[in-house]
């Protein structure tokens, strides 16, 4: 069923583009499967890019801030 939805959405893209001739704001919208490509590629980029950002820079151990607090605060 899911594969059916995928195929239907692609066919819908072609149908809308070549049969209904909607008003388009940008040139890339003339590509009937642009949204599908953007969704797939965008998702991959978000996952890989964010994971790389976290791995090399932003992700820290859960007690990061606790271990960096001043002594008196830590005791309290």
């Amino acid at each position, binding site marked *: 069923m899911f594969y059916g939805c995928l195929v239907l959405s692609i066919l819908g893209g072609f149908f809308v583009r070549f049969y209904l001739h909607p008003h388009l704001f940008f040139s890339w919208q003339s590509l009937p499967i642009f949204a599908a490509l953007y969704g*797939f590629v965008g998702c991959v980029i978000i996952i890989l890019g964010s994971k790389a950002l976290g791995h090399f820079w932003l992700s820290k151990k859960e007690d990061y801030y606790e271990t960096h607090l001043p002594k*008196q605060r830590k005791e309290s």
Partner: protein
Amino acid sequence: MMAWFHPGLIYIVGGPFIPLLKGRLKKAYLLLLPCLAFVNLLLMSKGVFLSNGKTWSLLFLGYNLVLGRIDPLSLIFAYVFVIASFCMILYALHIQDDGQHVAAYLYVGSTLGVVFSGDLITLFFFWEIMAWSALLLIWYRKTTAAYGAGFRYILVHFFGGACLLAGILIHVHTTGSISFEVFRWGAGWSWGNVACSLILIAFLINAAVPPFHAWLADAYPEATVTGAVFLTAFTTKSAVYVLIRGFPGLELLTWLGAIMAVYGVVFAVLENDIRRLLAYHIISQVGYMVAGVGMGVLGTAAGEMALNGSTAHAFCHILYKALLFMGAGAVLAVTGKSKLTELGGLYKSMPITFHLYMVGAYSISGFPLFNGFVSKTMVVEASGMWHRPVIYLMLEGAAIGTFLHTGLKLPWGVWFSKEKPACEAKEPPFNMLVAMGIMAFLCTLIGVYPKILYDILPYPVHYEPYSPILVVGMSQLLLFTFVAFWLLRKMLHGEPTISLDLDWFYRMAGRKVMWFCQEPLMTFARFVDRKVMDLVHYVVWFSRNPAEALSIKKEEILHQRLSEKREKYPGELPKMSVGASLLLILLFFWLYLILHLIWGS
């Protein structure tokens, strides 16, 4: 006679009576207050409670305070705040801690105060109450993390409040007016521009616009289960409201909005805590609204579309984000856990919660037939109307990330991903499920029948969300996002980490300040303290009998000098010059000669 009763006062005045009631009466009272406020709004919208045209004002210190500015923009925000407060208090109905209810109603009431304020003094007054009451909702969690996050929250909002007050004072000084209208920037440097900038910074802080956003993801996940649901709706959306009022069409906001829409989804990938993940999506979703305000040039079709889009998205966002936080809060309430690494496989234990949560997830993701679709696409459409390709792609890209996290990663990690449940779980209390059910119903209703929302928007709506190109485009986008997620789902398992955000700067700066206070500053303080106390003791001693004291001191000084002389005695002998020595030798010889002459002969 008071011609108009402020709906916010129903909450603010009614709240303190909550602890006086018990049992079912208290529950009925809690639900009654939002109902009264809603009736008040309905009557207000029909012009029953208007005293002076469309405003209700009060003379204060020579200024005309406008506590009630009633127009389509303030009314639509008030509607959604009141509706949301009803569902939220229903969600929190089982909570025995009356203080939380009082704080929550103070929070709602003050937000309504902000929405209806027609002047800057009234705005500031309710703005500050809003910050303090929100703080209470965080601190009621009563954990060390909540206390810390609450302190950071209020410090950031102190800064924002100070900026707002300074901006208002300069604005009033330069213009002579306290009315809250669209702020106009002049050319070049002027005090008027400084005032506008300060007020804008205050609004951006409350809207959690980067780089002023970190307080949100820091504080909201640390709030109580029910308090966090309240927090999702009011501070940021009231900030969007004041931005629409004060800065429509400001180009800077378009870019800040688009950046924050993407920023939120990037950080959400890294999050392990489900409520923090959702908090980052508040930032992302408010980005659409802020971008809409930036594109909302008054008097243009595209601008009105953008402002309608921002307003509609704020309305829908309050509903679906509260529903999402209710779902995540329900998991936290029954399991005591909120980290993806500690959750999983809960579907069999909490199927109703899952399905209700998913309605919120479909809504925020912008699935057709859910409310996010009918509002989010308005802002994206506005970017198309303005021919802003980069903004368009950034907003569409943020939609991908939104579905990825709230619609796929979070439910996958909490309710599936493991064959056996990671912990014991059951459905939450009935009142929580009913509240979620109402929210889910509203999300779906608006999605299916958007006219109900479009009719109350501030500008006439010339937009059809269910056009084939939009429906097909959104379907392709979301379905193929799912395909990518499925292929890479193993990368999206939670990891026991936290991610550094811009709060790192003030948390680390805070550490340095703490060290400075504890070490050099305290040493200096102790020194000054000792010297001052010595002086005080001496003055007290001296004042008892100054004449005798002077005498004693004189003798002490003399005695001291005598002692010094005695100690030094014989001291160093005086050194003589060569000439003096020769003279002495010469005198000695002279003496010898005389003696020799006398005695020798």
